[in-house]
């Protein structure tokens, strides 16, 4: 009897599908979605801050007045009027582009996937911050990229470390094809690339012939100062693919993002997206157009900003008051996330079931690295829960960390070696389900 693997297609899958396995992390997050659990894990925007009645009205009018267009196929590159409006939105941060060079995508996640398909052959190198956005790791993994991490500090990507990494790769006869970076209010680290570092990053990329993928979903959600110059602006639009999104400034559920790319790249991206999805959804694109034209969207961004500032303050105050000694965390000036480094000896991935058991969820740091790093850290999202819930979540988390620190100390005295056991080595990435 030959047995049954329960999957008759196992010999048919592409090699790149080998990493598609069910992980324990997903089982734990299934619990995190219950209302009893304070989830500091997911990066869901606070869309309830939108005037939903008004949004309903413009969407209703859209169908009533332009249904034949909104429910029809559209241009593969995206609705021409939306591309004009996108240029207006980018101009708020000083980014200049023409509608011809904008491709509308299904969230900026699709733009990441398209860029990975366009540039990456199996084994090609992508440089990314360490930690980096989990959805980007998913897109790069699907393209079988070799991701090399460059460390961050409180001022973002470290140019010196970038220079070393590029030099090291060049010395070994390898060339990085892409530099993926989230310069503003980083996901997951919460830090912002200092103005003084930006020019150097752009110059290094140009010197080594690396295309910069500048992912900027949070740029308009700064609490303290005007937006810093985009890498795209500093580079004069050369050598940078700039990714934007309406997920955080309007509504994530519409799945409308974009990429502004050099003409040659944009042309190929359009051909690729047509093969992938034919065209982005007309309905949601036109809804965004109506929103931008009929509603005070810049005022709405201020509403979002204040909601997130209040939540950020609640989280930082609670962390300051409650976290056990040995913890460190970033102090974001915008965006959604705090990156917390746990006390010595605490492994945040191993600790996660204990936290879920105590009804608080976070994302272990390992999800944000391609190489298994990040066991000492976690991402905390303050964007969604109300401030009182954030404080309660931090209170629970502080107790879990304290208990885990004690336990880890007890066992570390017995031997400092780390297990390489099966609990840890499948390289589980939470995946884009956790934005």
């Amino acid at each position, binding site marked *: 009897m030959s047995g049954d*693997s*329960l999957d008759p297609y*196992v010999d048919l899958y592409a090699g790149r599908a080998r990493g598609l396995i069910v*992980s324990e992390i997903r089982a734990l997050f299934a619990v995190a979605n219950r209302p009893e659990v304070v989830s500091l894990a997911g990066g869901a925007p606070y869309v309830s801050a939108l005037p939903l009645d008004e949004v309903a009205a413009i969407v209703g009018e859209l169908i009533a007045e332009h249904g034949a267009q909104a429910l029809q196929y559209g241009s593969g590159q995206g609705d021409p009027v939306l591309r004009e409006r996108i240029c207006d939105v980018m101009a708020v941060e000083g980014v200049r582009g023409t509608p011809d060079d904008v491709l509308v995508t299904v969230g900026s996640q699709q733009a990441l996937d398209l860029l990975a398909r366009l540039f990456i052959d199996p084994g090609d190198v992508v440089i990314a911050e360490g930690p980096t956005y989990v959805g980007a790791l998913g897109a790069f993994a699907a393209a079988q990229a070799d991701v090399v991490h460059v460390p961050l500090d409180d001022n973002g990507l470290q140019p010196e470390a970038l220079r070393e990494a590029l030099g090291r790769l060049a010395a070994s006869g390898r060339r990085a094809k892409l530099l993926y970076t989230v310069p503003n209010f980083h996901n997951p680290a919460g830090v912002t690339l200092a103005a003084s570092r930006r020019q150097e990053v752009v110059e290094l990329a140009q010197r080594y012939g690396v295309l910069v993928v500048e992912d900027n979903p949070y740029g308009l959600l700064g609490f303290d100062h005007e937006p810093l110059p985009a890498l795209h602006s500093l580079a004069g639009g050369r050598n940078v693919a700039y990714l934007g999104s309406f997920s955080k400034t309007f509504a994530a559920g519409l799945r409308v993002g974009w990429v502004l790319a050099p003409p040659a790249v944009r042309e190929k991206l359009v051909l690729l997206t047509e093969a992938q999805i034919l065209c982005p959804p007309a309905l949601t694109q036109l809804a965004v157009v109506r929103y931008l034209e009929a509603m005070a969207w810049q005022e709405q961004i201020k509403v979002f900003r204040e909601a997130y500032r209040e939540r950020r303050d609640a989280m930082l105050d609670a962390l300051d008051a409650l976290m056990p000694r040995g913890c460190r965390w970033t102090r974001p000036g915008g965006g959604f996330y705090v990156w917390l480094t746990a006390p010595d000896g605490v492994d945040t991935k191993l600790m996660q079931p204990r936290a879920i*058991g105590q009804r608080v969820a976070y994302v272990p740091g390992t999800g944000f690295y391609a190489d298994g790093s990040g066991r000492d850290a976690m991402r905390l999202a303050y964007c969604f829960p109300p401030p009182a819930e954030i404080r309660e979540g931090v209170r629970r988390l502080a107790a879990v960390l304290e208990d885990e620190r004690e336990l880890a100390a007890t066992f570390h005295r017995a031997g400092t070696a780390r297990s390489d*056991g099966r609990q840890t080595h499948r390289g589980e990435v939470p995946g884009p389900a956790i934005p």
Partner: protein
Amino acid sequence: MTGYAATGAEAAAGRPVVVLAGGLSYERDISLRSGRRIVAALHAAGCEATLLDPDDTLLARLDADRPAAVLIALHGAAGEDGALRGVLELAGVPYVGASAAASRISWDKPTAKALCRAAGIGTADWVALPDTTFRELGAAAVLDRIVERIGLPLMLKPAQGGSALGAIRVADAEDLPAAMVGCFAYASTVLIERYIDGIEVAVTVIDDGDGPRALPAVEIAPNDGVFDYAARYTQGMTTYHTPARLDATTTERLMAAAVRAHETLALRDLSRVDIIVAPDGTPVFLEVNVSPGLTDTSLMPMSVAAASLDLGALTARMLRDAARRSQQVSTVD
């Protein structure tokens, strides 16, 4: 399929039944998959069934719309530690499976092992220790004794729990401290047992009126040797052989051991007994599950199919038997 088609129709003639799935355990996702699958199977067998995810409205909902009986497809603590069963007994709602008292005993792996060993069923040497022991006595001294007395490799498991969550094989003593910390994240007590390198099998035991009997055993052959969470729930990562590729004598010993474990632990209706067949053919008891998984990749449905039974009809019959049993007085744990 033979067996229970008529029984399913009979159950359908009565009040609807409820399948409880979801809950707050780490196995929530698996439980929901089990629940959805068994509801579909019950519908196909002609039995009206509703899926409920237990929360603070559960008792009110059961009061308002009293089911004929309940099938507990909750995995992890809520479904298996006896607590919910005790509440159902208090509420006078009949359910399929082991009583609250028996579930509580089986749920605790060290207790189940001790009872099975006392009944003459082979089980690997073990010790079960809470984290407080290590905090009080110091980890190094205790771990040294464990390695000395039980020997390597070791298998570490949360004393309570399922789906291999938190379970880890430790071959090297220097990996033991970190593995213990990981295991304690799932439970405050860890079962540390001698790892037996043999053939892993799962034996479903059912009692559909004529006493407990073992269905064909499922042999589990993970592609890379370890039947962990990913290997359990990713189709294609494990090959299953049903019945297990064992000779007749070994199979007979295996089935007998499973039925004896079911009886020793005073289980009812159904259970899944996990066993390692040692190289000399001895069945070595690992643990028992009173609320076995019912997903597409779960072991009990494979056994049921190999026995030419229909899962929906079999379950409908058990629900009907549970409803009948409700006339009897039950003891709350």
